[in-house]
């Protein structure tokens, strides 16, 4: 029972947060919804024995990323809610079509397989703990190359942001 509760309560908040992200009018509310989802996810991670990941999730996502989001939201203005009216012709139709197909596929699969994800391997008896040491052990041996490579991605991201958003004074005077 606790297991179920441990799953169900965060799951409820995850979905709630996601729905807030999608449906809330005010960008700040959306951001807060996202925070809710991310935090609840961290809880789920803990129940899945991925404690270190959960910590990183809290730090990086709920901390750094969300700060960035909020910062931008503040910068570009909070008080401009979306036009709720659909302006694109046929968009709603297409969306509902998509939804119908999605539902159809899901129903189709459920009817075929039940709510069974048909995982090839049975659930492992061996419960691993996502401790930092275990992760580091793998990360710095077999995953060392991607780990190093990911730094390139960060450089790229920085450079890209620099190139896109940073204005030099010279061009300012030109405007």
């Amino acid at each position, binding site marked *: 029972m606790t297991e179920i509760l441990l799953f169900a309560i965060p799951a409820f908040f995850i979905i709630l947060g996601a729905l807030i992200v999608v449906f809330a009018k005010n960008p700040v509310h959306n951001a807060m919804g996202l925070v809710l989802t991310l935090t609840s996810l961290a809880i789920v991670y803990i129940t899945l024995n991925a404690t270190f990941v959960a910590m990183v999730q809290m730090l990086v996502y709920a901390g750094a990323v969300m700060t960035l989001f909020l910062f931008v939201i503040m910068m570009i203005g909070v008080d401009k809610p979306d036009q709720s009216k659909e302006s*694109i012709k046929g*968009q709603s139709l*297409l*969306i509902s*079509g*998509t939804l119908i*197909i*999605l539902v*159809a*596929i899901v129903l*189709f*699969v459920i009817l*075929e397989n039940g709510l069974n994800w048909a995982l090839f391997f049975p659930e492992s008896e061996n419960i691993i703990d996502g401790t930092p040491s275990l992760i580091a052990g793998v990360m710095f041996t077999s995953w060392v190359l991607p780990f190093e490579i990911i730094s390139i991605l960060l450089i790229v991201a920085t450079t890209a942001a620099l190139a896109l958003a940073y204005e030099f004074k010279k061009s300012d005077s030109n405007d």
Partner: protein
Amino acid sequence: MILEILILGVVALPLLTSIFLKISGKFLNELLTNFITINAALLSVGLSSFMFGYIFLEKFKPLKFELFEWYPSPQIIIEFYLDGLSGVMMVLISGLSLVIQLFSTSYMSKDEKYTKYFEYFNFFVFSMLLLVLSGNFLVMFFGWELVGLSSYLLISFWYEKKSAAKAGNKAFILNRIGDFGFLIGLMMILNHFHTFNFIAIFNSSLISQPKNLDLIILFLLLGAFGKSAQFPLFSWLPDAMEGPTPASALIHAATMVTAGVFMLVRISPMLQFSEIGSLVIIGFGLFTALIAAFAAINQEDIKKVLAYSTISQLGFMFIAIGAGAYVAAIFHLVTHAFFKALLFLGAGAVIHEMHHEQNIHKMGGLRKKMPITSAMMGIGTLAISGIPPLAGFWSKDEILASVFSKGGIYYGFWALSLLAAFMTAFYMGRHWLLIFIKEPKIDLDNVHEAPKNMTRPLIILGMFTIFIGFINTPFFHGLEKVLEETLHHVEVTHLPEGLTLAILAILSIGAGFTGLAFAYLIYIFDVISYFKVRIPFLIEIKKLSKNVIYINDFGNAVFVKGLKSASRRIAVNIEGMTIDGLANGISNYFLKSSTRMSYVQTGLVRSYVVYFGLFTLILIFIFLISPGVLA
């Protein structure tokens, strides 16, 4: 061997003359042209007479000459063949061409394109000689078509005149319709006999009478109808009178139009087996003879009367062929050539002196002004009417008698032919009387006798018209002997004997005289107004006659206009709207639907996201339902 080459000489001489005139035409004046062309014609006459004499001495044993291989398989050789039939034609053509050229030197003088006229003229003679001297069907077809070409050139000689140009076209195209039949005939012949050589074909057709012989004959007949201006295809001949009159004399009286008759006699070894063919020939010939005679009665143009008369006389020749009297046909061909050439040249002289007035109602009383011409044309008229002892009598009488002698249904044909003979006399009488005898309506002061260069040929032809008939009388079968070798295996209808022949002769003479007498009574004595006779429907009949029972108009409306409007309709509706329209429609539809489809590309990210999701799901769905996945 050397003699055989001379056949080539006969054919080539006019061609060389023509080419020479073409090349050096710019530098020649009239005199030089005359010199060249008349001398060439003389040479040609000499050469052909020599050849004729030679085969005469050899008892008309055919001469053959192979020039070169035109096509290897099936072997088709450009070959020539000289026998009695082609010999007669050869002499006739070269002789007449000399006489007519002589006439032309005067008639055509001062024309801008003087040299060109002789160039075409000689080319025509070449084509005609090629036709008659041909040794196989292909060479004959060569000549056949080239005759069409040269007549086209001569008819539309004065091309500035729209009517002349049109007449030339009409002549060529109607001839082509005939040639179409000829061509199909040739296809069947080649398919059946695998050769074009006359002798080979005739020999094999004697041995095994081919099944579709009737069909072959009928198609060849269409060719003959076209060239000889028989019923469905005759309307080009009256129109062809737009050409220079001497040319008409040669083409439309003496030679070209007789090509059909010549061809049918040439194929008589095949023709004799086809009863349907014979019946068709005699039927159409008779019909043509009657219609043309009827049409000739009320024509106003001096040349058109002669043209219709030619058609009618050709009908007679066809009747003869249909009745199997091939000799009679050729005989009539020969005599007709002379008297019709005479008539045409006479008409030419009249036209020349009347300053190109061609309406006979505007003439009259020319006898005094142009005595020689009137006399000679009188001889021609009598000859064509069948008055003995002139040429026309002998030949026409022979035809009538031959028809009669076949018996059965041919009695009916005979009676109708006699009617046609009567009509011939009637309209020819009218023609001559209106021109020369009737009181003139206009001032004729400046009308004189034609120059000597014109009258001399007339006189020569007049002499021939009188005497040529004696070559084949019931008492002396000269022509029959000439053609004996040619018609060796052919069953020729012969004349009845004794009393029947005499009665028939008297009847035909009677028809001729009655016709002339009627003409005199009606047009000079004016018997109708004198006795106040009221003939019902006179005006309608006159109209019918004048318009040739509207056959021409009917043809125009149905075929010319019909073809034009049909092709216009096809060009617009089928070509433009259906075929092209379909192609354009497809491309337009493609572009239109592309434009419509491209609205999907809204430029909005959210649409793209939806497509992304939608199509991902669709693809997954497709994957799931694709065979073998969930099974």
